[in-house]
């Protein structure tokens, strides 16, 4: 899997690469408009992370170029602008997703995984981790070939943990993932604890190993 990070803030691209090293991705960086155009013209990527405001030009023009050249690279816009208009504009130009800065790396990782899954042409929408198999198309999770009955939020949360496996996901990131913008309205993370407890209970009941670890007070990690 090849990923291109078009972002002028080097520290941020370094951070993204560092977080994604758990996945078997090959990451490249383009830190200005010219370099980005060169790279996107010469190579194909599975996913491109695209910053809008770049030295040397507007990131949206790269998106236009891609679409004009009938390239099918998945694109996630990462922008400091987060108004609805900016989102609509980006998505209208053919971006697959839009993530406003600042974002959680775990959220970015989950979005990249989703874009790559959607663009997989072999029709295989299954993820298998030991005894767990996740059909992301049908949104079904099987443990030892038995269907796991989960609520929508529980499914989202488990998928989120799995796509960020072996990494700590903070409670803030989980709250933002589940509740969106409302997450920061309340201070309590008790509902996360409740969801995790339910998932663990259901997994244990179907004979699954205990993969979900609580990491001190920070958050949770899906250990494989």
């Amino acid at each position, binding site marked *: 899997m090849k990923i291109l990070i078009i972002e002028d803030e080097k520290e941020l691209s370094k951070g993204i690469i560092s977080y994604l090293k758990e996945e078997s991705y090959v990451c490249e960086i383009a830190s200005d408009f010219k370099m980005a155009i060169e790279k996107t013209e010469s190579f194909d990527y599975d996913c491109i992370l695209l910053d809008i405001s770049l030295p040397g030009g507007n990131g949206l023009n790269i998106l236009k170029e891609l679409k004009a050249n009938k390239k099918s690279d998945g694109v996630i816009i990462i922008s400091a602008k987060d108004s609805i208009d900016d989102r609509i504009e980006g998505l209208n130009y053919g971006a697959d997703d839009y993530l406003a800065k*600042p974002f959680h790396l775990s959220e970015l990782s989950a979005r990249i995984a989703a874009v790559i899954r959607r663009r997989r042409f072999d029709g295989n929408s299954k993820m298998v981790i030991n005894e767990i198999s996740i059909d992301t198309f049908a949104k079904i999770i099987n443990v030892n070939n038995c269907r796991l009955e989960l609520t929508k939020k529980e499914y989202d949360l488990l998928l989120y943990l799995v796509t960020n496996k072996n990494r700590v996901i903070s409670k803030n990131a989980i709250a933002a993932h589940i509740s969106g913008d409302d997450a920061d309205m309340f*201070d309590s993370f008790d*509902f996360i604890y409740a969801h995790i407890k339910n998932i663990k209970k259901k997994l244990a009941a179907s004979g699954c190993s205990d993969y979900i670890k609580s990491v001190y007070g920070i958050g949770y990690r899906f250990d494989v």
Partner: protein
Amino acid sequence: MKLLNKTLRLYIVYAALILLIAVPVFYFAIKNIVIEDVDESMMAQKSALIKKLEMQTNGAQLYPEINSTDFELKLLASYSKFDTFFITYKYDSISKEILPYRTMKTNVLIQTKPYSMTLRSSLIDTEDLIERICLITGLLSLLIIVGLFFITRYISRKVWHPFYSTLNLLHTFRVDKDETLQLPNTEISEFSDLNQTITKLATTNMAVFKSQKEFTENASHEMQTPLAVFQSKVELLMQTNPLTSEQAALITEAEQAVQRMNKLNKTLLLLAKIDNNQFSETETIVLEALIRQLLAQYAGAIAEKNIAVDSAEMDNSSITVNRYLLEVLIGNLLTNSIRYNINSGSIKISITNKRLFVSNTGLQTPLDTSKLFHRFQKQNTSNSSSGLGLALVKQICDLYNATVNYDFKEVNHIFSVDFNSSVT
């Protein structure tokens, strides 16, 4: 006091004073002149009479050309020089009035005999004359003053007209609105100068205001990238191995801080965007529907604190505003009512005739209303409070001409928003 009245008042006071002083002075002056005149003519009459009497033999009986009531001649024992003038009042049987007379009493020698001679001259005609002169003069002066008053007022009005129209335009001028100040042209150079100066001042102010607004927005935007770097580094720090509980605690605190900063920045950006009128799209929204939707979103938090929500009294009021801003406005009021509520407390939401009331239990004392809706005013020590929530509510209300009020009744904190005067 109006400028016009101030000038006119001075004029009126001066004119009244002059009138009050001038009329009596004028009256006495004329009276003196007239009396002097009468006295002189009486002296002349006396000389003429003496001459005539000298030639008569029986002086006491003969004074043909003068009315007997106006002339008296009395024989005296001895002669001494004596002359006096005074005013006497006598009852006149014809006009049935007491009339003034100028009387001259003098001692004279006629045919070597001493007499006391009294001459009277009626002042009734002169008195009338003086009164009329005074009356006419007074009336004329009054007429002049009144005329001057109106002319001055008219001229002042005309002269100051550009000033007042400038003043009226300044009243409606708002530095935060995009309308530029258009002052009328005037021929009077002072006012033209004034208008130019004001226009220049307004333009500069608007430019400064605009750049300040843009600064807030740009600053918030620029902050997003370092915040993103900060957040990503904190997340990477979580992944380090080994991770001790001490480090974990520090990382958690750092993450909370970056979340707060993030939220603060987002709110500032939102405030700046409202300032910059970036939410011009509006739609008609039924308040009840939106509130039910938001309550469903907060159901978890409400259940957690075991809060009883009473939302029975809601009519079908609808308003035409930007949906996102209305969600922020009502969302802030509702989350406040949940966040600052007590466990097993209550919330009452009602809508009557475009008036929204959110009342909740909480602190036992009322909030400090003086700065409640100001930016960065925290009413509690809660770390997670940005101090911007109610400022945002106020700003959105201001944008739509809605009024927001706080009240404390029977240990309930009541926030009310009245959308009735909002332009829809």
